[in-house]
């Protein structure tokens, strides 16, 4: 499955960046990454994405398999078959697993990206994919509802239209 592969690739990329951060950023002052936009700062986070619900390690360790299970069920049982919908789920799945690995093995999540121009929690690759995947999923969902509404409209119009079948 292509979409599971997307998730695996995200986990790999996320873990590599985290490993690099541990060896290069740990115990140092934040460094400028992209001037005025992104700094690199090593943070150990015990909460969810963007440091919400800090300290609930076991809650997340328990919740992640549930989320992963639901997403895998949706993908494998073909409850969603649209490409964009599946890609967005693959992204969320990869991000969730990336942080899950941290919580399980380290007990905390390693974050390293910090916006230079605004006060915003430090985040990592997994957070980026969870957020973008989530937004993409909402976009997919709205689009699919719109197309469904269009079909419904045609059906209504059909029911109210000329019943030519009786004329023949």
């Amino acid at each position, binding site marked *: 499955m292509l979409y599971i592969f997307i998730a695996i690739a995200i986990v790999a990329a996320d873990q590599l960046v985290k490993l690099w951060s541990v060896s290069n950023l740990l115990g140092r002052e934040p460094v400028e990454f992209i001037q005025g936009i992104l700094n690199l700062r090593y943070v150990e986070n015990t909460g969810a994405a963007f440091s919400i619900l800090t300290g609930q390690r076991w809650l997340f360790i328990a919740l992640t398999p549930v989320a992963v299970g639901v997403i895998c069920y949706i993908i494998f049982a073909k409850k969603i078959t649209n490409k964009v919908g599946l890609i967005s789920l693959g992204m969320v799945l990869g991000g969730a697993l990336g942080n899950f690995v941290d919580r399980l093995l380290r007990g905390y999540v390693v974050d390293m990206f910090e916006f230079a121009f605004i006060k915003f929690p430090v985040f990592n690759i997994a957070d980026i994919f969870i957020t973008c995947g989530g937004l993409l999923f909402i976009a997919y969902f709205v689009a699919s509802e719109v*197309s*469904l509404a269009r079909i419904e409209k045609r059906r209504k119009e*059909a029911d109210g239209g*000329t019943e030519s*079948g009786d004329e023949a």
Partner: protein
Amino acid sequence: MKLEAGNRVGERIDTFVAGKTGLTRSAVQKLIEEGCLTLRGMPVKKNYRLVGEEVFELELPEVRERGLEAEDICLDIVYEDSDVVIVNKPRGMVVHPAAGHESGTLVNALMYHCGDSLSGINGEYRPGIVHRIDKDTSGLLIVAKNDMAHVSLAEQIKEHSCYREYEAIVCGNLREDSGTVDAPVGRHPTYRKKMAVIRDGRHVARNAVTHWEVIARFPGSAQSQAYTHIRCMLETGRTHQIRVHMAYIGHPVAGDAVYGGKDEFGLGGQCLHAKKLVFTHPRTGERMTCECELPEYFRKVLTILEKRV
């Protein structure tokens, strides 16, 4: 028939004509080779590209001369006027002649019924045919009786404004009450006569969307298989679309052995009926709805299932 290029500059002539008429590109190329397409009285070359604002003249070969025989086969005509005819095709009838099915097709029957008045655009073997229904699928099919109607209907099919609704019995009990399958359909990579959901990017596939909703459930028991009576609303109309999509989500159409559907009722084909058709009338511009009853084979299956409950 006149075809105006307008501002479409640089487009290949066969692509342009195919788009305007609903013909296949190869059919158009054949017509061009035969000199049927002219520009200011001169035959157009096959590799011609549009320069914009030309007006082509397409002369279609006469349907009758081509040796396709009109046959007196009883047809269930649901609607007919001087532009279109809507037929309720029985299951088992092939729409147009092809290898292995030279006679007894819907086209043969229509030629008898309509006489000379069938649009010749789609070539010698498919006069008036703007869309198809599988051999073993029953239900409504709209046919063009003149070129004006053909161009209009082909365009409606292409831009999905011709709305079609099917009813089917599928294997198994669908979990939800409604859903959508949105997965590209293309030719099966190994079984050339089958279609399949294709996502590998290496094989040709076209996007296809099927919305479905449950009409009735027949949950089955320890001894008997579950079935669901569903309604399918099509956004696209690819070959075998409903059959492939329902099989893809694990609920093949009952009787559809090609795609893994059990044939418990001895149907010898899929239990699928094109029940409703909505289109814009080519002449009046009026939105028209055509609907027909479920055919006997379908009702029989429903009766058997209802008795089980």
